[in-house]
């Protein structure tokens, strides 16, 4: 079961069709897309594949990258770190890939990175936010999402300063993503003079019953629930809160920003606040274009993974057409300022995005709504040295 499955995405016609004859003579540019395509987190992989499909179609329709068609091979890590390492080895054995686009969750990325680093394979990452990834000194890594520690500070500041809450109930997925957010949130709460009244982890993709946590939080006087998990568990948690007849504000990261969060909560997500690394409802032509195309093609809203994955291919097109090669790809990306569907990106030397702030999204009348609000950062200065 641990054998990674390699799938060829969609039909070859979709991926490489309208390339010119000259381009075909030069052969395609290959990118390896790595993430969970099956298993409990397969929905994230599905979004990565959908973002890929739209980007590859658009790029190849316009003649590919520098005249070469773009072709993507999909690798399945099932969101299991052991499998992620095996996938990394398979990709490393093959030197035709310009770069790896992946992995999706932080635990898998952390497991695979040492192998890519050793083989000097560039990794462009959409959604792994664990802060330690860019603290390891890996020079072959760059990511589009905002670091989790910065995120945790912002979510906490929003709950305490903007919403005036003092008793945080922290729920976290017990993996690298959730634990890192939880630890930074406990630190941020201290800096903001708030109390951590509830602190509960759960096993992602296994635990679906949150009734005991909800009873515990209610008894402990929690007045705001901080959801540090994916939309699946987040939606179920919000729904079970409502079932239990308990209503306090919910604050969470953009992993919740997906219509499944609303569907699974069955009304329980109403009023929830989401701090998003991109604003899907921004009145920007690039964002609107992407959202509309995605909605038309797949009849659902894209998740963050889809948006960032889509942007990465266009980013690759930009830097490769400006002369980047596999050897200097990451260096060139770090030196680039890029405007995509998910907003503007620029990077620091470690490979983290800089100068990006969170968009505050609110669930109103069963829909995500852009509020235009910003986070009141009073008290966070203490955390920045």
């Amino acid at each position, binding site marked *: *079961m641990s054998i990674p499955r390699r799938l060829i995405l969609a039909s070859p016609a979709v991926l490489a069709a309208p390339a010119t004859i000259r381009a075909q003579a030069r052969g395609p540019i290959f990118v390896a897309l790595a993430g969970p395509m*099956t*298993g*409990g987190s*397969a*929905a994230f*992989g*599905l979004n990565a594949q959908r973002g890929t499909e739209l980007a590859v179609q658009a790029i190849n329709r316009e003649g590919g990258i520098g005249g070469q068609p773009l072709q993507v091979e999909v690798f399945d890590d099932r969101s299991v770190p052991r499998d992620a390492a095996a996938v990394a080895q398979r990709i490393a054995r093959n030197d035709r890939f310009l770069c790896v686009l992946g992995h999706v969750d932080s635990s898998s990325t952390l497991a695979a990175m040492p192998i890519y680093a050793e083989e000097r394979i560039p990794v462009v990452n959409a959604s792994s936010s664990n802060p330690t990834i860019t603290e390891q000194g890996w020079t072959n890594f760059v990511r589009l999402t905002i670091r989790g520690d910065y995120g945790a500070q912002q979510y906490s500041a929003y709950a305490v300063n903007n919403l005036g809450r003092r008793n945080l109930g922290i729920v976290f997925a*017990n993996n690298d993503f959730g634990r890192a957010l939880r630890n930074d949130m406990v630190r941020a709460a201290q800096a903001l003079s708030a109390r951590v009244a509830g*602190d*509960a*982890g*759960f*096993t992602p*993709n*296994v*635990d*679906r*019953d949150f*009734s*005991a*946590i909800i*009873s*515990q939080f209610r*008894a402990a006087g929690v007045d705001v629930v901080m959801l540090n998990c994916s939309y*699946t568990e987040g*939606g*179920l948690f919000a*729904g*079970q809160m*409502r*079932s*239990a*007849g308990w209503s306090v504000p919910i604050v969470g990261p953009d992993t919740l920003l997906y219509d*499944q969060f609303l*569907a*699974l909560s*069955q009304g329980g997500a109403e009023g929830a606040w989401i701090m998003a690394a991109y604003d899907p409802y921004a009145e920007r032509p690039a964002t609107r274009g992407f959202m509309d195309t995605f909605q038309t093609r797949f009849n659902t809203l894209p998740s963050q993974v889809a948006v960032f994955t889509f942007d990465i291919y266009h980013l690759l097109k930009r830097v490769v057409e400006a002369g980047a090669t596999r050897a200097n790809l990451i260096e060139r990306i770090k030196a680039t300022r890029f405007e995509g569907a998910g907003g503007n990106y620029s990077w620091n030397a470690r490979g983290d995005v800089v100068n990006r702030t969170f968009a505050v999204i609110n669930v109103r009348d069963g829909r995500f709504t852009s509020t235009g609000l910003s986070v009141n950062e009073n008290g966070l200065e203490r955390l920045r040295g």
Partner: protein
Amino acid sequence: MDVPYLTEQLVNGLATGSIYAVIAVGYAMVYSILYLINFAHGDVIMVGAFAALTLIGMAFPVPAAILAACAVGALVALAVERIAYRPVRYANRVVPMISALGAGLVLATLAHLVWGPEVQPFPQLIPRGNIEIAGIAVPQQALIILGLSLAIVMFASFLLERTRLGRATKCVCQDIYAAQLMGIPVNLIIPLVYAVGGFLGVAGGILFAMYFNAVFIQMGLLATTKAWAAAMLGGVGNFYGAALGGLMLGVAEMLAVVTVGSAYKDGVALVIIVAVLLLRPQGLFGRRVVERS
């Protein structure tokens, strides 16, 4: 810690545990006859729960949809028995176990193809809110789940104790060859037991879906592991042991959340099971089973 809080948590634990109990009972029925760890049981349940969701989505009346979904569970269980178990019934005990694992994987993959990888919301069929009992607010949904589960377990117990099918099952359980020689249609009884197990399992799976508001592919594996743990705790192959084991597993998980924290829920529950099995290898309510050669 105060009494209302602990009562609320106890009801939570019992509700979850009663769902485990329903699933574990179907599991124990199969084990008691064939000594087969039916790894496909959870996936049969998952398919049934998805079937219920699809039928309700097609605007079938809810009771009809649930009954039909349970029937789907029975049919799938029959098919699994016919395709994956019967050909290897008399082989070494490891063989049907592997075959069961394979059947489970095939069902999970088929479900993935049909319904996709997303966790899907299950309609709220049970009114939410709290009921006050002796001044303590208790979640109404949990109580209804608990009541329904106990009713299902009692119905299964009636089937097993008071019907001809139940008596025949017990004979097959005691000695499959002797039962055959006495004219009991073994090739009818065994599939029937599977079908009943699948039917009840799906009923449990639908309760599960209603309580957690969701159906998902991995609920099969989850149900199998929880049912297995419950059955081990209660005494493998013991019908009432499995039911009580399920309730106790739910309460143990709840106690873990209350005492050491939710992140250690499964760990603590499993430590309790290991401790019980060290002291009583046959499980809390099990008899020592003499190994048949």
